[in-house]
């Protein structure tokens, strides 16, 4: 194997922002507008990275006329079947409209009413021609002299330090490596760190096969890096078991809000019956509705807008160009869409209206839609001091979308600033940071002979195990205790194998770490699924051993992995699981004793 070397570049700053997505761009720009020195580390190119690479056609979290932030909070709690933090949601909701105004001031093209006000899709949604939202968000990072934007930098680990022996560790920076050109590692020392790396896709077997495996809804390049380095650093995670299964357009995995809210489409089964009301209208129940109709032989299910005329159909197709270009292409291929009189869906050529097949996606871990991610305070501080989290990587506050992620970016920026002020940390910001040689961390993957398997093959094995045993699509999202333990064992084994993978260039090293990140997240996810012994969100997953909702689980299930000290270890350990009160956040007893993923069964 052609070895390559990683020279380490050292950089010092006040605040390090990891991930330049919706949350990270806002945090970086707000902090950089003050006196602080900010580094923003982004794995891809900030102009087209993360969820927003293709754009958006709506701002999905907004407080409309006659509503209050408390209304948004209450809506999000109901939608999460009670498992969400009222305080986190309220502090986010109070800043949603600020986020929309900020987008507008950056140049986002909102649809406007004649009086200049925003055009809405519902009280929570604004329409926008947002194909270019990502370059707009990233632009300030490139202009501000206090901000150093480092692109193609894959951050893999946090740097931790203790003020004195025995005290709790703080986050004092992070390190990673450049994925292009000659590579090179970077060690960034910081007074505070904001993690904004988004959620995790590609843990489960995806909807589309082989050549199309990455045609998924969530970005396949958001691999849970920030979640993984948090787990390794011993940060507390919350509600990972609330996976997000998205109801999406079949094949392209494009969001359906454009059809449902934009064109008034409703779900119908193959018999033409509308069935949603029978199941309830939370996000999880809408996924369940489609799954049950299919399971009972009344599928395939569609989104159907019988009333949509030429105008609505064009508007819909056009809206997809701003967010999911493959779905726009699909419309064009099926009926011409933009050619006068052409039907928009080939399913029923000639018929009026719009008809699109829908299905559930692979499960994702995304704190922007569900409550899974870092456990944070209202300042967006995690359980590790000096480490803040915002956006899809942060837990407790579901239904964030682009505006809520931006709001959290602003909150995390303010939190980090306060932390640096309150603390004399900056003045005695020590040399104890990064005494280890960063390049040694990557060395095992850079030399020696490659094993008899590849990164892709291990990824496939991980996805297959999670799919079969941890509630993937092939079991209609059902899982059992015995199965979860099987998945846990398999993940531990694959992790051990991943340690021998070799990289011939920085891009390959990045894919090895993406795999390791997903494996670390998978194991924590399994521990969470195992320990919420009920079925709370049946649309997103069903625990076969505990098929009903259980009021004893009106609480957060959280986890802490304290064994790793911030580094990728030789072997993965099952995290410690605990429970917290939904409102106060205080630790409370779990209804059932916490179970270890690898616990030996007592002899029969």
């Amino acid at each position, binding site marked *: 194997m052609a070895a390559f070397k990683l020279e380490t570049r050292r950089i010092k700053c006040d605040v390090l922002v990891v991930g330049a997505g919706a949350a990270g761009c806002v945090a970086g720009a707000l902090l950089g507008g003050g006196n602080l020195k900010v580094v923003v580390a982004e794995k891809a*190119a900030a102009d087209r990275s993360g969820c927003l690479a*293709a754009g958006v056609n709506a701002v999905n979290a907004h407080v409309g006329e006659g509503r209050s932030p408390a209304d948004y909070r209450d809506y999000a709690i109901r939608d999460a079947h009670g498992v969400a933090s009222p305080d986190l949601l309220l502090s986010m909701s109070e800043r949603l409209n600020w986020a929309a105004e900020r987008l507008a001031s950056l140049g986002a093209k909102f649809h406007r009413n004649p009086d200049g006000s925003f055009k809405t899709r519902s009280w929570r949604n604004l329409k926008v021609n947002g194909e270019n939202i990502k370059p707009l968000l990233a632009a300030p990072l490139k202009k501000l002299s206090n901000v150093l934007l480092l692109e193609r930098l894959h951050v893999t680990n946090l740097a931790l330090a203790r003020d004195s022996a025995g005290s709790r560790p703080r986050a004092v920076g992070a390190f990673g490596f450049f994925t292009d050109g000659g590579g090179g590692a970077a060690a960034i020392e910081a007074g505070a760190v904001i993690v904004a790396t988004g959620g995790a896709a590609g843990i489960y077997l995806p909807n589309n096969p082989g050549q*199309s*495996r990455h045609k998924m809804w969530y*970005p396949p390049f958001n691999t849970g890096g920030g979640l993984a380095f948090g787990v390794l650093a011993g940060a507390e995670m919350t509600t990972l078991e609330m996976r997000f299964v998205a109801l999406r357009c079949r094949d*392209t995995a494009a969001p359906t809000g454009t059809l449902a809210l934009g064109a008034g489409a409703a779900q119908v089964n193959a018999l033409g019956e509308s069935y949603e009301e029978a199941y309830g209208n939370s996000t999880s129940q809408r996924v369940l509705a489609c799954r049950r109709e299919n399971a009972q032989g009344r599928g395939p299910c569609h989104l159907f807008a019988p009333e949509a005329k030429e105008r609505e159909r064009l508007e819909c197709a056009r809206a997809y160009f701003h967010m999911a270009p493959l779905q726009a*292409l*699909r419309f*064009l291929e099926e009926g011409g869409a*933009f050619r006068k009189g052409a039907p928009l869906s080939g399913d029923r050529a000639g018929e009026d209206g719009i008809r699109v097949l829908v299905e559930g996606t692979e499960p994702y871990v995304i704190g922007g839609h569900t409550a899974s991610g870092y456990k944070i305070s209202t300042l967006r501080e995690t359980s590790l001091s000096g480490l803040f989290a915002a956006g899809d990587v942060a837990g407790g506050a579901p239904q964030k979308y682009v505006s809520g992620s931006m709001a959290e970016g602003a909150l995390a920026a303010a939190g980090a600033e306060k932390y640096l002020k309150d603390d004399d940390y900056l003045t005695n910001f020590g040399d104890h940071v990064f005494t280890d040689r960063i390049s040694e961390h990557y060395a095992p993957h850079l030399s020696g002979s490659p094993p008899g398997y590849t990164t892709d093959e291990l990824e496939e094995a991980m996805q297959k195990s999670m799919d079969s045993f941890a509630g993937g699509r092939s079991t209609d999202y059902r899982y059992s205790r015995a199965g979860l333990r099987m998945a846990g064992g398999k993940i531990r084994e694959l992790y051990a194998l991943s340690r021998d993978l070799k990289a011939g260039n920085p891009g390959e090293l990045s894919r090895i770490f993406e795999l390791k990140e997903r494996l670390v997240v998978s194991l924590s996810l399994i521990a969470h699924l195992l320990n919420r012994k009920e079925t709370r969100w049946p649309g997103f997953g069903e625990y076969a051993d505990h098929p009903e909702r259980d009021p004893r689980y009106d609480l957060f299930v959280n986890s802490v992995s304290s064994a790793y000290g911030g580094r990728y270890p030789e072997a993965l350990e099952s995290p410690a699981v605990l429970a917290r009160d939904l409102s106060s956040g205080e630790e409370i007893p779990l209804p059932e004793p916490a179970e270890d993923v690898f616990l030996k069964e007592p002899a029969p």
Partner: protein
Amino acid sequence: MTIEIDSLNCSGCGNCAEICPGGLISLVDGKAAILRPEDCWGCAACLKECPDSLVSLRLPPALGGRGGFLKCRREAGRLLWLYFQGPGDGEPLVVDGEGREDGY
């Protein structure tokens, strides 16, 4: 393959390689090439960045594709989408994402 690059006419400016969120495009002998087509997300970032509209986006048959493809062009600051029904389709249908193409 979802992404195709007309490498014959490629000037090697590198825009598409720099922008791809998956780092899937590289310059090989001064021409852009997609190295891991199966890893493409379909976000169209590379289409938007090519100054000469050389990159096209296709829907694979497993996703309902029928051989049509998209390209992008910028005109007076606007992003236009060009839809070709197939390789032999001469004049593309031009769709303005902001909604002002002729006839509508």
